[in-house]
């Protein structure tokens, strides 16, 4: 409070003294106070998320051992014979995200190189917003496409494919995160100074050599950050995996099998509207906490890498 008061005093610029009237000063204070309150809401939001997740997760771990949760290989909280090993869900999320990355990372970086090194300004102004539309499509739409478009294609190619399979979800999630990789990588490539490119050209490098041996390494931290943020988005994606990847938590290496991701499990329980205080209700928070911590780690790492690349003085 005293910090805020001191700040308010110091916050009014010197000129204000000239025409200072009571109303004006009160108005100033009110504005500062209201705006500060708005900012405080965002802090409360974080505190709220952490508090809610932590208390219920603690409740969960008072009934289930942490060791079983972390190392168990069977996830069956809704069955008669309950089992709470998170690994199958984690594996489902990792399978889908890695599959999506196989598609999105190379295509995203190549697209970014094309837009920053090859495209004319006109083509870039057209293509970039067009590709970014892919990130604005609601995720439930990607679920629909995975189920009605991608899975039938996969089944035509690989007859053993299940109706619900990890691969179809990977494909649509890959398309969904493509713009994330592309936009952030392109931003990094465009930040590479012209003089580096020209130096390489003057040594006789071809355009490809400039792109892959000068621009790409120079923008590498931005590319890395884009990978991390895209992976975290893929991991947090819910609807496409709920609709297309199935609800069978299992440790399988076959991408044509059904899996269940962390997010899909949360959605499955959410649909059944569990009663508060039950163990089933509490699994929501334990799984949610796992998801929260995983994506948080990737986001923080991504932000750190990105800020380092921004600080790099060219």
């Amino acid at each position, binding site marked *: 409070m005293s910090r805020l008061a001191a700040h308010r005093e110091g916050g*009014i*610029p010197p*000129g*204000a003294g000239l*025409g200072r009237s009571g109303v*004006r000063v009160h108005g100033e204070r009110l504005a*500062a106070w209201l*705006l*500060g309150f*708005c*900012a405080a*809401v*965002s*802090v409360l*939001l974080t505190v709220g*998320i952490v508090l*809610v*997740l932590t208390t219920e997760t603690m409740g969960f771990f008072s009934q289930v051992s942490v060791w079983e949760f972390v190392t168990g290989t069977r996830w069956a909280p809704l069955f008669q014979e309950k089992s709470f090993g998170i690994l199958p869900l984690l594996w489902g999320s990792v399978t889908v995200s890695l599959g999506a990355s196989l598609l999105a990372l190379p*295509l995203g970086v*190549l697209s970014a190189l*094309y837009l920053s090194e090859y495209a004319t300004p006109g083509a870039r102004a057209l293509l970039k*917003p*067009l*590709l970014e539309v*892919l990130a*604005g499509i*609601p*995720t*439930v*739409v990607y679920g*629909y496409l995975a189920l*009605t478009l991608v899975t039938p294609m996969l089944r035509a190619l690989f007859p053993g494919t299940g109706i619900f399979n990890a691969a179809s979800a990977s494909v649509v999630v890959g*398309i969904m995160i*493509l*713009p994330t990789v*592309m936009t952030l990588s392109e931003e990094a490539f465009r930040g590479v100074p012209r003089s580096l490119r020209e130096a390489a*050209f003057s040594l*006789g*490098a*071809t*355009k*490809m*050599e400039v792109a892959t041996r000068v621009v790409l390494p120079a923008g590498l931290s931005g590319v890395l950050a884009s990978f991390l943020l895209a992976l975290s988005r893929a991991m*947090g994606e*819910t*609807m496409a995996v*709920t*609709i297309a990847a199935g609800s069978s938590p299992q440790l399988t290496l076959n991408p044509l099998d059904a899996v269940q991701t962390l*997010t899909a499990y*949360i*959605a499955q329980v*959410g649909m059944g*509207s569990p009663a508060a205080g039950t163990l089933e209700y509490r699994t929501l*928070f334990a799984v*949610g906490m796992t*998801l*929260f911590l995983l994506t*948080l780690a990737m*986001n923080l790492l991504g*932000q750190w890498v990105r800020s380092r690349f921004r600080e790099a003085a060219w």
Partner: protein
Amino acid sequence: MVTGRGAREVGGGLEWGAGSRRRLAKARAFEVAALMAVLFGVLALAVILGDLLLDGARHLSGQFLANYASRFPEQAGIRAPLMGTLWILGLTGLMAVPVSVGAAVYLEEYAPMNWATRLIRTNIATLAGVPSIVYGILGLALFVRTLGLGRSVLSGALTLSLLIMPIIILTAQQAIRAVPREVREGAYALGATRWQVVRHQVLPLALPGIVSGAILAVSRAIGETAPLIMIGAMSFIAFTPASLGDPFTALPIQIFHWVSRPQEEFKGLAAAAILVLMALVLTMNAAAFLIRSRSRLEE
């Protein structure tokens, strides 16, 4: 051509050896590959839109918009989810936008540059990356259970407001930061107070950026499904919400339930509902894009 420059430099005055020809061929192949990568994205977008139109367009009609959901595909419509989505659109806009813009103004114009402010900034960027379903869990625990708001349209709008607030704050901060320092200093030099500078100088200039960010964020909110599943938006509702406490459904929820049905007809209805939702979302995106591109402060 694009490789022309490389060709001239590589070959300048020298004999064209097999090695440089190979390098040029490689360079060409790389350019084609990069172009293909871009075209893959464009093609994906075209296939998505084409597939949806092909599946859904024949179900679109005035009746489809006016009817409630039904067990019979030929009678089913999206009246309740469409109204629910419009409620969500209005409520999240009203709740999330003012608070977020206020927070952005505070962080950019008022907050002292100390560790606490830096922490709040990092925190907001981090919140923007929290998966939407985690906000759903929060909404379930906080609004539906603790505050006892139930599975109401208000719970849904509050949950989605929390989800988009960090996004609006981030874009508003960017827009405010793009206002040149000279504008502020000029106003201060004339004796304006801090709030006068914000109100009459900074906000008008930052407005296009703020508005386009807010529109994008709200368009994201109406496309979200997972948080609404968590707070228990229902799928089969034969009335439209009349007050904040009423249960509701929304377009993404209705789409999800139609997709989950095994019958082909319902998949067609899902595609039609998707077309309506996408028309809303893409119109908002286009509006945001236009407002932003007409702003004088952009680059």
